[in-house]
């Protein structure tokens, strides 16, 4: 519990600091920040240190160099998915591995059986984060691997469930507050969420879809907005159960974008399909070019939604991790350089952290707003042509 311990120390320092001059107070704050940095650095070092046993493994020795810090591996490991949730140091939360093998049926076992990719279990091995089938001698069987459907509860699946659970819990509690305080001014969590809900309703849904039809799309827009927002913010929390790169995972953004595509496709009216299949007022020979482009555009819009959210959040995580990695890259040359760079890295990371909080809100807004815009284009009745934003 180094975090809570340092917080208590800090609180005590602050209380005692009341009688002290102002500069001493700020000095203590700086000391606290440095302390936090050292703890986080230690945690990252432990994480990065995982390269060492990998390298020591004789089977992988040819691929890895020495027991040195590998920033790329650390960062990719962080932003990717995991079959067990690595919390700190050697502490890893084992997660259930669920495999549907078309030959061998359903297999469920703990991810701890893989021993971080060092051991095969029941003919399966964890290799570079994905499960492969191996034969008795331990070599990868590519034909058998093709039969595997990996339905494991990974770190991101667990995070998605946690995020959705938080969203459901938060808004059912808010809904209860509305029931309990009917006709009264909002209070507490309710008053925190109400402006955001009103913003989604008035500026996103009403603005993009229109006064007449916005209502039936409100549940989806609110769910997707708050899911992305909560996931983005939870991704910024540096310790368990935060830190997972959920909205920076392409499978997650793919799912969200697919839902948008389905909503748009099933709600598209005559006007919408007319514009895609045969743009009115365009000569037939141009349609030969235009119609394929429009059909492509139909899929391109959700595709761009998927890429935008994924790239923004993943990039934020990569940058934050890169700044931390710098400390250990320099630390590998000399300890003094590592400590020197740590100050700069920390400042940049703090800056990035605030930027990412902003990005968390902006990306949730942008995803919800663009979804609403696509839905609006699919259901609009009037002939005024809205510019489609891609």
């Amino acid at each position, binding site marked *: 519990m180094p975090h809570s311990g340092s917080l208590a120390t800090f609180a005590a320092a602050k209380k005692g600091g009341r009688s002290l001059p102002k500069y001493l107070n700020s000095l203590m704050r700086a000391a606290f920040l440095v302390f936090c940095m050292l703890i986080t650095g230690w945690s990252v070092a432990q994480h990065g240190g995982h390269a060492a046993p990998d390298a020591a493994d004789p089977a992988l020795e040819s691929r890895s160099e020495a027991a040195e810090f590998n920033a790329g591996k650390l960062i990719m490991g962080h932003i990717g*998915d995991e079959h067990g949730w690595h919390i700190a140091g050697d502490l890893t939360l084992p997660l259930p591995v669920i495999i549907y093998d078309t030959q061998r049926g359903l297999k469920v076992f703990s991810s701890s059986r893989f021993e971080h990719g060092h051991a095969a279990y029941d003919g399966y091995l964890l290799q*570079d984060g994905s499960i492969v089938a191996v034969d008795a001698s331990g070599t990868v069987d590519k034909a058998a691997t093709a039969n595997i459907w*990996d339905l494991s509860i990974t770190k991101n699946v667990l995070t998605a469930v946690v995020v959705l659970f938080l969203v459901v819990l938060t808004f059912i509690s808010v*809904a209860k507050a509305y029931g309990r305080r009917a006709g009264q001014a909002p209070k507490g969590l309710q008053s925190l969420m109400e402006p955001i809900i*009103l913003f989604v*309703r008035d500026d996103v849904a009403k603005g993009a879809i229109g006064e007449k039809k916005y209502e039936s799309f409100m549940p989806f827009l609110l769910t997707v907005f708050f*899911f992305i927002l909560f996931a983005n913010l939870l991704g910024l929390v540096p310790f368990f159960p935060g830190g997972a790169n959920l909205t920076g995972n*392409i499978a997650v953004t793919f*799912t969200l974008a697919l839902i948008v595509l389905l909503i748009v496709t099933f709600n598209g009216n005559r006007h919408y399909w007319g514009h895609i299949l045969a743009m009115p007022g365009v000569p037939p020979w141009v349609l030969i070019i235009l119609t394929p482009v429009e059909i492509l555009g139909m899929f391109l819009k959700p595709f761009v939604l998927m890429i935008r959210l994924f790239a923004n959040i993943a990039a934020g995580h990569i940058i934050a991790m890169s700044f931390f990695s710098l400390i250990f890259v320099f630390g590998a040359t000399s300890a003094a350089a590592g400590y020197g760079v740590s100050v700069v890295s920390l400042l940049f990371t703090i800056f990035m952290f605030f930027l990412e909080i902003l990005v968390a809100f902006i990306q949730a807004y942008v995803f919800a707003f663009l979804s609403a815009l696509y839905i609006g284009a699919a259901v609009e009745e009037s002939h005024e042509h809205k510019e489609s934003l891609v």
Partner: protein
Amino acid sequence: MLLASLVEPAFGLIFWMTLSFGIAFFLLTKFAWKPILGALRERERSIEDAIGEAKKAREEVAAMKAGNEELLREARAERDQMMKEAREVRDREIAQAKDRAKAEADALLARAREDIRNEKNAALTEMRNQLGELSIQVAERILREKLGDQSAQQALLDKVLKESDLHLS
């Protein structure tokens, strides 16, 4: 290899994501979004109603105030009218009283003057009568003195005759 896994959507995650998002969407729609949006709409409507009612009440008060002012103005005008009429009546009555008094005074004066004149005339007549009587008495006494003897009477008669003859001729 690592980069490929980054941009390749994992089937398992899509599966669980779809399932959990679907369940959460259902729960949220049923137990959160509908009650919240309903409550917001309800509250907005009640606020709108309250504003409308307040506006109506304000208009009513304004109308009432205008009515009151109208009444007040009318009352004031009526009062002014009444005062004006009262003043006119008073003036008229004063004038009438004055006229009547003047007429009466005039009549009295005229009667007094008449009386005075009558008295004067009566006095004058009386005086004239007395004067005549006196002069007759004087004349009688003179005549009695002058014409006490026969000769004086004859002389006078002659003389008068003579004069009247002359006149006749």
